[in-house]
């Protein structure tokens, strides 16, 4: 096997040195009744070309965003990925390294994380960001746990119904056996109902959690929600599933959020059937020591040179064990690089310009669809990339009809929102040309695109 370098001579010399006569003896610590008495029932080893062939066959059975016209979003976004990113993250000094526990030979990873933390702070308008979480949904769950930990005896958390459903489900799983009461805040025209929020708030509430933009692409009134939340001494958590919006709309930090979490996949991370993504997590300085996850800090070496180290590690599981701020042990190291390289390439101007393009494209599609018979744009108000359409035609049938024309129409909202049974969540990004959008509109209206 090409990954196994031992020759027969090597093996014999090593056995001699150890003082055993065969490899089996090395397993004498495994009792007989714990042994597997047969070979593993797995296929025989394949050659590299055979492996590639069989995997390619599987890959070819999937509908890709390059071959289909995709209007799917809902927490995973089809954005262009500059070639530079894959070239750089393919440097194996990055991807074959472990967590940077030995700083002297991990400065590349450490400086990259320090820069990532800075970029996330700049984007969110917050003071401190960690070295990333698994994804937006689990970051949102960890944010809830942070607010309960920091909120002393408070144990209620109000979750906006306009948070992405997968975020709400993840928060629910994380809180399943903890003493946390999760309460839904209902919708009002697609956004968090502020009157209901005011009714629900009391001094037992640790946090209010809202999406920004929310699941329907709508831009919530974070400033007003923050004011209500803070009036009761609770923390406002904003979850950002599409962070490109932060290049165009005011940052949650500027609007008063206490914790900002989100999904960084939009920034250069391939869709890959939904994973890996990358969760980001930012807080105000006051919550620095209750943050979950890894943190990198700047310091000096013995010669006074600048260098970076993992720091404030006493919060973490490998030191504090059951009292740790989280059980998380990894971070999304390689995805940090993708995001950072993406942001560095786009920079101050490019990110804004790209956000404006996305805004204009989805506004164009929304406007065109709103003019069609049988389709209504469900919610008004500022939105980014995504919008909801109420269809006269049953959504399942409509989607099938569009699939015939190689169009992935959007996400049916009926399963997660009974009141939106005819709702279709449509996403438009810079990857959708005007031609594509026009064809989409034509097919929606009953035409043939071919």
């Amino acid at each position, binding site marked *: 096997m090409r990954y196994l370098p031992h020759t027969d001579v090597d093996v014999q010399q090593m056995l001699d040195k150890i003082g055993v006569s065969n490899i089996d003896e090395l397993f004498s610590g495994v009792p007989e009744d714990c042994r597997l008495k047969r070979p593993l029932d797995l296929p025989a080893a394949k050659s590299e070309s055979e492996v590639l062939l069989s995997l390619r066959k599987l890959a070819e059975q999937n509908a890709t965003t390059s071959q289909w016209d995709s209007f799917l979003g809902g927490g995973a976004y089809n954005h262009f990925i500059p070639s530079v990113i894959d070239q750089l993250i393919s440097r194996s000094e990055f991807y074959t390294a472990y967590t940077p526990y030995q700083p002297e030979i991990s400065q590349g990873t450490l400086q990259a994380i320090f820069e990532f933390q800075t970029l996330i702070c700049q984007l969110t308008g917050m003071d401190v960001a960690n070295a990333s979480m698994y994804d937006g949904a689990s970051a949102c769950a960890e944010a809830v746990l942070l607010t309960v930990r920091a909120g002393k005896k408070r144990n209620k958390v109000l979750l906006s119904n306009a948070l992405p459903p997968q975020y709400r489900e993840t928060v629910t799983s994380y809180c399943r056996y903890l003493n946390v009461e999760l309460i839904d805040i209902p919708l009002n025209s697609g956004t968090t109902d502020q009157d209901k929020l005011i009714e629900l708030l009391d001094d037992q509430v640790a946090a209010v959690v809202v999406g920004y933009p929310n699941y329907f692409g709508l831009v919530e009134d974070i400033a007003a929600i923050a004011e209500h939340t803070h009036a009761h001494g609770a923390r406002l958590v904003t979850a950002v599933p599409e962070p490109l919006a932060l290049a165009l709309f005011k940052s949650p930090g500027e609007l008063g959020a206490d914790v900002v979490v989100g999904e960084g996949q939009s920034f250069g991370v391939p869709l890959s059937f939904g994973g890996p993504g990358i969760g980001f997590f930012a807080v105000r300085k006051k919550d620095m020591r209750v943050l979950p996850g890894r943190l990198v800090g700047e310091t000096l070496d013995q010669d006074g040179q600048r260098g970076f180290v993992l720091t404030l590690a*006493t919060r973490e599981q490998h030191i504090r064990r059951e009292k740790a701020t989280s059980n998380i042990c990894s971070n999304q190291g390689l995805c940090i690089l993708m995001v950072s390289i993406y942001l560095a390439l786009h920079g101050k101007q490019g990110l804004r310009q790209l956000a404006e393009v996305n805004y204009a494209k989805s506004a164009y599609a929304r406007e065109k669809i709103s003019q069609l018979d049988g389709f209504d744009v469900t919610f008004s108000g500022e939105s980014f990339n995504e919008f909801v359409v109420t269809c006269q035609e049953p959504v399942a049938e409509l989607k099938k009809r569009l699939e015939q024309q190689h169009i992935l129409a959007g996400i049916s909202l009926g399963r997660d929102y009974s009141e939106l049974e005819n709702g279709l969540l449509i996403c438009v990004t810079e990857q959708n040309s005007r031609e594509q959008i026009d064809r989409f509109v034509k097919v929606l209206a009953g035409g043939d695109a071919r």
Partner: protein
Amino acid sequence: MDFPEEYKYTEDHEWVLVEEDVATIGITDFAQDQLGDIVFVELPEVGDTLEVGASFGVVESVKAVSDVYAPISGEVVEVNEALPDDPETLNNSPYEEGWMIKVKVADLSVVNELMDVAAYQEFTEKD
């Protein structure tokens, strides 16, 4: 290692100095040496009530965390406000500038149950 004569000591490596009915509490030279460079200190607030054996604060080094336990019961009347900003004081001057809290002692007889310097020295050698 330095252990002042007039102080009392606990098995959790705190020292206590009682003057009238107020006890000053900190961690010993042994404790700071075991922890290494101390980087963070968390103290209670003035007015908090301490129970014997309950944790009243936290001391952290780069790679270790240690709770600090109340050797006596009573009310916190003063905390060393300078300590959180300069945690290294606990390394440099554990018995003087590195004092942590002052407590108004509820029951002075408890103090007599703590170790004297000889007993503590023996304890650290065993530990």
